[in-house]
């Protein structure tokens, strides 16, 4: 059925191509005139034929086909930049690189979709502006891209303060997170209170939650596509930020002016440095601490206007440590996790104006906990851990099929090595022991093709992706059709629809080691089946003057999803993960609202989602539907920005965020039961085992309704070089006691943990 529909649409698109008139191509890249940074999603419009327009792609590349030997008026626009017009009469294909100068900046500080008012918005796609991340009130003044994304419709609030994303009924491991197109396997610094993305280095953030283009694959629910700045090719600049827990510096500039540039951005938490400085353990004693750090580095080089090379790297790490030095022995305990990524990219524009992209990358994630003791008579070490390494390539080609059609083809491949959780024990007095499970190697080859038709009020994207997994994961190739449709009824009003199928061959299993939360990535292989999903969505958009409204409804069906509702990871050794794997199904239905208002002084953004996410596992109540952990029925976020003063070299503005949502489902016991205490005859015990809690089903009750108000005020002053900004604010202004979790204490009383009571923050930023 899907294959037939796909072929029919492909036929329709090609018929349109055949009947198009004699044309020439205008192509090139759109970039910032001051920095040469390429601009994604700029609009290039032929004003002499309003049905003819295009947008620049992820790398700033655009291709517009216009009638030959005809006068045309080309308009190039991008939010925050001065619009440029070109009056052309071309007889042959022409390379035209466009540099836009920053101009009157619209006050779009929050979620903006589309980025320019004239851009057609694909269903299920949202973009986040730099300001939405940078100036939103944040924990400890350290901005967090994940919290900004949670202000988007369709993204569940999840646990308060956590960085994990739950998109349209999908779990946190069902999101493909890409940093410069490289998969990222860990999002969390500080157990999720902060994200691994340093916003100083970021350029674009796009979220696809439905009708995901065929170029993306490998996860069931969403794609978060983040790009890092390329580095200023014109001059050196940078910035320094200090928050209450971390410091960041970013520096960028030309290596060869207008030819090559670099960017380095590094961030590190600093409280542990203070602790180490204050404690002198050279003479013995215990030193405890925690730190996180990340480094983004990128350099690029243009051979000429048509050939570009990029090299980029990322290193992120979190570490808890405890070192104890005594006269006759030394011991240490560490727990850590982190990501490493490195990539090389080559982009070219062919003679026929097609855009080619080749990417080679390596991405890894590892987590471990270890402890050791060295003394005169004992030497023991104990190490647990797992890791994932992925080598991959991505080839893509984008070319024109006529005035209104673009084609994209690509081939992706990966070689993933997963070392399942293993345990290594060494003891001088006992034989060494390693509980090592064999590495699992996954190989995937994915091919895709898509056609993008855009004419006047009508837009259509059809695509097909097929994934070939190596044996043991899936014997047959999995086909994933993708469809996105948009029709503009009039200047303000448009309708849209989309559908997609996705598959996923890895999953993240929660673990609990040394009492700390975390997760480890594992393969779907052997008896664990590949996860799949379908999603259909429909929506409308309304944009008039300063006001925008976007509404989408969706239905998602998930098969072979992985969970372990009945047995928490702490019940097992991490090496026995396969014992607690359970596969089931899921469904999600919802409606997402996004309303925006943007004026020069005041802007606001309102998100509301009404949704329902259910899971079913054979081992839980014989497969009855239960609410998913992150099933939040009503979810409202209002963000606003009000400029109080903007004159001369000073600017003062307020940012605010109000969140309210239904309580998250949690599991609570339903009965108290007698235990088999005493365990051993009639001994006297230090613990009370006379009664236990009986749970009937997971997620049987909900936490109280959540609501919270965060406010921040920012003081910016232009200086001889750059700007300096002080940000101060308060999280949870009216000190709402939102419960984070409920537990039963040892006296049998139920208590609730509130993680974020009223809390001030302060941050400083200086650009140069």
């Amino acid at each position, binding site marked *: 059925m899907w294959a037939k529909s796909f072929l029919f649409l492909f036929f329709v698109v090609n018929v349109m191509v055949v009947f198009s008139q004699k044309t020439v191509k205008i192509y090139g890249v759109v970039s910032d005139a001051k920095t040469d940074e390429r601009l994604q999603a700029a609009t290039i419009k032929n004003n002499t034929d309003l049905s003819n327009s295009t947008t620049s792609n992820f790398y700033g590349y655009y291709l517009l086909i216009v009638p030959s030997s005809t006068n045309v008026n080309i308009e190039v626009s991008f939010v925050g930049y001065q619009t440029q017009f070109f009056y052309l009469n071309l007889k042959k294909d022409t390379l035209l690189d466009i540099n836009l100068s920053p101009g009157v900046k619209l006050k779009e500080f929050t979620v903006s979709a589309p980025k320019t008012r004239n851009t057609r918005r694909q269903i299920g796609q949202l973009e986040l502006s730099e300001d939405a991340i940078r100036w939103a009130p944040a924990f400890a003044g350290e901005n967090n891209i994940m919290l900004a994304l949670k202000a988007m419709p369709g993204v569940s609030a999840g646990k308060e303060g956590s960085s994990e994303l739950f998109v349209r009924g999908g779990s946190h491991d069902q999101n493909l997170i890409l940093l410069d197109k490289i998969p990222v396997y860990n999002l969390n610094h500080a157990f999720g209170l902060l994200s691994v993305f340093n916003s100083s280095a970021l350029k674009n953030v796009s979220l696809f939650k439905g009708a995901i283009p065929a170029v993306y694959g490998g996860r069931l629910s969403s794609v978060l596509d983040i790009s890092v700045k390329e580095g200023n090719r014109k001059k050196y600049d940078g910035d320094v930020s200090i928050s209450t827990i971390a410091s960041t510096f970013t520096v960028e500039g030309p290596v060869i002016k207008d030819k090559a540039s670099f960017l380095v951005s590094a961030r590190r938490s600093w409280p542990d440095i203070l602790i180490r400085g204050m404690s002198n353990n050279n003479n013995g004693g*215990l030193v*405890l601490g925690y730190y996180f750090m990340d480094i983004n580095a990128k350099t690029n080089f243009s051979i000429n206007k048509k050939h570009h090379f990029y090299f980029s790297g990322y290193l992120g790490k979190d570490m*808890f440590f*405890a070192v*104890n030095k005594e006269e006759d022995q030394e011991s240490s*305990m560490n727990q850590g996790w982190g990501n490493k990524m490195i990539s090389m990219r080559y982009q070219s524009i062919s003679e026929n104006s097609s855009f080619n992209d080749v990417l080679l990358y390596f991405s890894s994630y590892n987590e471990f906990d270890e*402890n050791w*003791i060295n*003394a005169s*008579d*004992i030497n023991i070490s104990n190490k647990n851990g797992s890791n994932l390494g992925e080598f991959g390539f991505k080839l893509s080609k984008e070319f024109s099929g006529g005035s209104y059609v673009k084609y994209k083809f690509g081939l992706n491949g990966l070689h993933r090595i997963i070392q399942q959780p293993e345990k290594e*024990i*060494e003891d001088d007095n006992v*034989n060494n*022991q390693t509980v090592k499970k064999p590495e699992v190697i996954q190989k995937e080859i994915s091919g895709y093709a898509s056609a993008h038709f855009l004419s006047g009020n009508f837009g259509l994207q059809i695509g097909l992706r097929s994934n070939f997994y190596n044996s043991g994961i899936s014997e047959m190739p999995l086909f994933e059709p993708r469809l996105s449709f948009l029709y503009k009824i009039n200047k303000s009003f448009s309708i849209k629809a989309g559908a997609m199928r996705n598959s996923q061959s890895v999953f993240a299993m929660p673990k609990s080691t*040394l*009492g*700390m*939360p975390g997760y480890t990535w594992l393969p779907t292989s052997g008896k664990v089946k590949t996860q799949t999903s379908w999603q259909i969505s429909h929506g409308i958009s309304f944009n008039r003057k300063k006001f925008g409204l976007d509404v989408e409804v969706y239905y998602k069906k998930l098969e072979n999803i992985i969970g372990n509702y009945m*047995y*928490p990871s*702490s019940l097992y*050794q991490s*090496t026995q993960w396969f014992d607690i794997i359970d596969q089931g199904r899921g469904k999600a239905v919802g409606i997402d609202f996004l309303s925006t208002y943007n004026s020069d002084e005041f802007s606001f953004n309102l998100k509301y989602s009404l949704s329902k996410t259910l899971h079913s596992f054979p081992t839980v109540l014989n497969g009855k539907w239960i609410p998913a952990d992150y099933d939040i029925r009503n979810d409202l976020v209002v963000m606003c920005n009000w400029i109080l003063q903007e004159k001369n070299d000073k600017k003062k503005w307020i940012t605010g965020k109000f969140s309210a949502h239904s*309580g998250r489902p949690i599991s609570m*016991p*339903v*009965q*108290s*039961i*007698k*235990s*088999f205490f005493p*365990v051993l005859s009639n*001994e*006297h*015990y*230090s*613990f009370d*085992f006379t009664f236990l*809690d*009986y749970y*009937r089903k*997971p997620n049987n*009750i909900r936490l*109280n309704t959540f609501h919270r108000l965060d406010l921040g005020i920012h003081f910016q002053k232009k200086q001889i070089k750059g700007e300096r900004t002080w940000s101060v604010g308060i999280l949870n202004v009216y000190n709402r*006691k939102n419960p*984070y*979790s*409920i*537990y*039963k204490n*040892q006296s049998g009383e*139920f*208590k*609730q*943990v*509130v*993680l974020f009571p009223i*809390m001030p923050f302060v941050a400083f930023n200086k650009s140069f």
Partner: protein
Amino acid sequence: MKKSFCIFILLVFLNFSCVYDYDGNLPVSESIPVLNGILYTDSLFSFDLHWSNNLLKKDFEAIRGATVRLKKNGEFVNNIYNTEGKYYLNDTCLNGDKFEVEIDIPGKPTIFSKTAIPQKPDIQINAIELSDEERRAFAYNLSIKNISDDINTLYCFLFLGEYLQDSTLVWEQRSIYCDSPQADVFNRYFDSWAPAGFSYEYENFIRFPSDNLINNKLKTKLAFIGGNAAVRIYVLAATKEFDLYFKGGYLQRSFNPDINLPFTYQPIFLPSNIKGGAGIFAGVDLSLFEFP
């Protein structure tokens, strides 16, 4: 060290986290039958049946007059007696015995469970010299071999008997010091004041999962701090059903937000082998060593 480590993290989070009385609703449910039957080697076969109670209650009504059908090693046995919710068989449990039980309570589904008593491992515990001038500490060599496949885990408990002024001997449970890398670390803490030659303290007991053992053997040293009027060391060889239920129950009851990080709390669904009810029906082998 783990305790200090957790306290450090807790202090960090206490800067912005708080604990209050729960002000939401508690779920309600009807009572369910609960079977508790731990079958010890060389002990009388017995189990008890009680009704569960409201979440905040700790007293439980016995289930009297249930109809019990018991199979021992595949054959029905009839001489089951009961009194005040305790059901017993005039027979002794032996290593390798297999039991299946079916219980009918009017108005409730039939309860079913089965278990086997594991084989006895070969255990040796000997007192050894410990030269510790600062602490009054005692140590033992523990050696266990011939651990059969039906043993999922070995638990080690230590009780200390001390005489009161009126010459009454009182037994108290003690933490055990052990540095074996083969022990489960979930209740382990680093203790900078541990007896000489030891670093880790295990709260209440030590759990040695069989998949941590090398060639199904365990050899390690144990120690405790305190008087040595009398010491009892128990080694409990547990089946998988006992191990999961016991560790699950211990995790439920031992969560302490003063030590554990409040946000790490996880609800613990007890992995029970009772169909039609709750509780546990499991065989264990218990060995007791007394010193001096």
